[in-house]
């Protein structure tokens, strides 16, 4: 029974990982850039929500309505000022530039807020600890369920946006081949900036849930980046629904690992990531094959 509970909690935890991985995966899929400041930006958003709640009494969900657009602007600026320039400098420059940026963000947050851990939990009432009991041993946290629901809605929303809207199609075309997209009148510069803005808006959402479900400190970004990265690689980098699968695999591995050893939570997650990498060595990209098979099946 305890086993079943851990798996269930792991699946729900996967919802959060899908949320944090979504922006990273989206940016990688569209621009081919892995943003190493991703985790730090999520923590930055969490701090912004914390300041709004603590100083001005703005409830975090309401605050998100302000912070998500603000982060989208940050994304726009990030693309225009840093990523666009660094991509021209070759493959190494974006990695180095965004890593430098993450160091700046982390330490400025430390300078401003100190080493104390913060949480948005106290500002969302009983949501942070309330749960529905299924049996004596199994309970579903309301916040965890909400996180999962938001992850599904967000991933689904982006999918519909990419498939149904003109801008969405332009983003897909740019991801596929920016030069050819340019030939048919797509402004790749503008499209990439829009994609970065969307990615960072999702980072704001992830930051909100990061703050509500646990505590965070100025240097929490590195761990968030690693979890996001693991989820997106396990799910197949650049694939949206893959990040949900990857997040769930990561969450389940971690919560089962936690049963074995206090450090097992992290160890099992990292192992799951390496095992998937290793499996790809021998069996090819399984996720890719499943997707191709599914797509083929649908066509017939």
């Amino acid at each position, binding site marked *: 029974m305890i086993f079943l509970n851990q798996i269930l909690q792991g699946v729900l935890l996967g919802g959060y990982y899908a949320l944090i991985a979504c922006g990273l995966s989206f940016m*990688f899929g569209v621009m081919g*850039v*892995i943003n*190493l400041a991703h985790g730090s930006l999520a923590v930055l958003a969490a701090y912004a929500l914390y300041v709004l709640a603590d100083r001005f009494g703005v409830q975090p969900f309401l605050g998100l309505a302000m912070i998500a657009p603000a982060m989208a602007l940050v994304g726009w600026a990030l693309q225009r000022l*840093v990523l666009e*320039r*660094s991509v021209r*400098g*070759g*493959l*190494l*420059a*974006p*990695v*180095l*530039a965004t*890593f*430098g*940026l*993450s*160091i*700046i963000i982390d*330490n*400025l947050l*430390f*300078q401003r807020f100190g080493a104390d851990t913060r949480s948005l939990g106290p500002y969302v009432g009983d949501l942070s600890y309330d749960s529905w009991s299924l049996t004596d041993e199994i309970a579903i946290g309301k916040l965890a369920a909400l996180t999962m629901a938001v992850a599904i809605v967000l991933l689904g929303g982006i999918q519909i946006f990419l498939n149904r809207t003109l801008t969405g199609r332009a983003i897909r075309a740019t991801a596929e081949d920016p030069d050819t997209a340019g030939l048919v009148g797509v402004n790749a510069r503008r499209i990439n900036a829009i994609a970065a803005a969307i990615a960072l808006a999702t980072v704001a959402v992830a930051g909100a849930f990061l703050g509500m479900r646990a505590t965070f400190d100025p240097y929490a970004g*590195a761990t968030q*980046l*690693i979890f996001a*990265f*693991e989820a997106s*690689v396990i799910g197949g*980098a650049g694939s949206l629904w893959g990040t949900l699968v990857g997040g769930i695999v990561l969450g389940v591995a971690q919560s089962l690992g936690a049963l074995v*050893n206090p*450090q097992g939570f*992290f*160890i099992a997650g*990292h*192992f799951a*990531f*390496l095992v998937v*990498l*290793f499996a*790809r*060595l021998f069996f090819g990209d399984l996720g890719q094959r499943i997707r191709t098979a599914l797509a083929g099946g649908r066509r017939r």
Partner: protein
Amino acid sequence: MSPGAAAVERWTPESRVAIAAAAVIVAVLAAGPAIFSANAVDKLTTLFIYIILALMWNALVGFCGLVSIGQQAFFGLGAYAAIRLANWGVSVYPSLFLGALIVGALSWPLSIVMLRLKGGEFAIGMWVVAELAHMLVNLDTLVRGETGISMIELDAYASGSRRALTYWCALAAMAGLLAVVFGLLRGPLGAAIRAIRDNEEAAESVGVRVAGAKRLVFTLAAFGAALAGALWVATALTFQPKAYFSPLWTAYMIFMALVGGLGTFEGAILGAVIFFAIEAWFGAMGVWYLVGLGATALVFALFFPRGFWGWVEDRTSLRLLPIGYRLRIAKLNGAAHGADGAEYGRDNMG
């Protein structure tokens, strides 16, 4: 053009002087503990370790095009291996080198998996490896979790002789690794790995054994970082997993290689000296110092990707420790003219 009008040049007069000067400097440094104050000896030991770190990261990134954010994995494992071996009764100073060798050997199979990843994926993938290594080391009861442990075996030495021995080990490690990397880069492997960095597919198509060359550099870089970590433990005396497995080490490596000049041999040394000076002047500023390091890395990555030494190379024909090939084209009457001759193996970033 008549035969013999053009010649490939590998040494220049300045570079012969530079090599001779380097040999003299190392010889003088070897007498360091007898000449310098205890404080200066400690400082120089630190500088030697920084040079090893910069050299190794530069070899990995600047020459092979493999950005890793996880080199702290090897730095920490090297330190841990030294502690572990010393605890098992291996003599302290040999254990520093033996531990690094073991970590280097372990990195070989790891390279087979990790080198499947490209670009940013490789970068963070290595970070995951570092986190995993950190957690696994914490499982060893000897380390006592994040509390850490002192290298008590070092207490067997008087502080003066310990300082001198650690200094000599660091100097020998630095000089040895500099010589190995210089030799490798001048040899056929050097041409191969720079070809890989510039265009992997093209390199493969002209017969470069891409996978083997990358693996060799990866393993060498792991060994070097592990040796640096072991030497760091010998100077710091204590091992706390969190401090050794911190990505800050990689941030330092990036800073040194990037500011000095990615992909230039001299740049790694210059970068380590610059970083050493900056740390001495601004290290006490704490958080703002780190913000400054991050900002400098960002600015260099965006605007000066070739660093200081790259700037020097672009504007002058100065090559102190040449690893490339230069074509000197003589005029028909035989007079040499080729300072600006076409140059091969020039280290362009991407």
